[in-house]
């Protein structure tokens, strides 16, 4: 199994391009921070950009775009459990004990300025 020289050279080109894109997106993230968006919008934008950057690292640098089924399968499984771990505990803090008439008091994350 020897990857041929030509495909490696092509890959090197894509590594450089992705590297440049990553730096650019970093700049955008920092610049966007200057605009002091509302918290939900700020979170969405920041995570969106981070996800784009992360996807590029994964698919190009880590060669994930042409990896094998077992790797995809293990990662997909991990991704599902990652989401579960991140959001299900949060859901247990919603709603109080469940009295239908009373509005449960919930600590709001304050808008920082």
């Amino acid at each position: 199994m020897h990857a041929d020289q030509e495909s490696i050279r092509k890959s090197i080109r894509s590594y450089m391009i992705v590297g440049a894109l990553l730096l650019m997106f970093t700049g955008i993230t920092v610049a966007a921070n200057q605009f002091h968006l509302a918290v939900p919008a700020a979170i969405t934008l920041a995570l969106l950009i981070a996800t784009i950057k992360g996807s590029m690292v994964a698919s190009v640098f880590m060669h994930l775009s042409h990896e094998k089924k077992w790797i995809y399968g293990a990662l997909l499984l991990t991704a599902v459990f990652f989401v579960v771990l991140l959001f299900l505990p949060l859901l247990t803090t919603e709603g109080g004990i469940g009295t239908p008439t009373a509005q449960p008091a919930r600590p709001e994350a304050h808008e920082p300025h």
Partner: protein
Amino acid sequence: MEIPYTVEPRPDSGLANGKLGIWLFLASEVMLFGALFSTYILLRVGAPEWPHGELSVKLGAINTVILICSSVTMVMSWASLKLNDFSKGRMYLLITIVLAAVFLVNKYFEYADHFARGEGPWHSTFLAIYFTLTGLHGLHIIGGIVVMLYLLGPGAGLWKRHPEQYANRIEYTGLYWHFVDLVWIFLFPVLYLL
């Protein structure tokens, strides 16, 4: 007695043992950092107010740039080895180590700055999760440096005996390193910007 598929891939899975092994390890690392991100979410949602501007965005951004560059040099190291250029491969590996060290130095300055003001992880839940997330990430950087130094130094002899196996080891180290970069790509906006 030899273990099969240590270097050449098994036909039906298309993988060498080490490749599958390192990806499984990274999967477990996703869950490890996931738990800390879950901690961050739960603590922040439960907090009446969350601090801002306590961290140096400049230093954080510089460190982000440093890690991105180190990711490029890491993959270039592997690519050079695949093109049979051992000296270029070593050079890129060395640059990666240097960049990683600079990252740690920056981190040291950041931490020292907080501690000088008596603000350690005990000071607030924000600082607690900040120090823990970046501290664990920093330990992973150190681990990566150790492995890279080994491959640069005593482990480099493998190139002469089994060049393909050596290139594979660089590839697996690279996968680990890109993962460390990936974690930082999320850590930076979450801790420093939001």
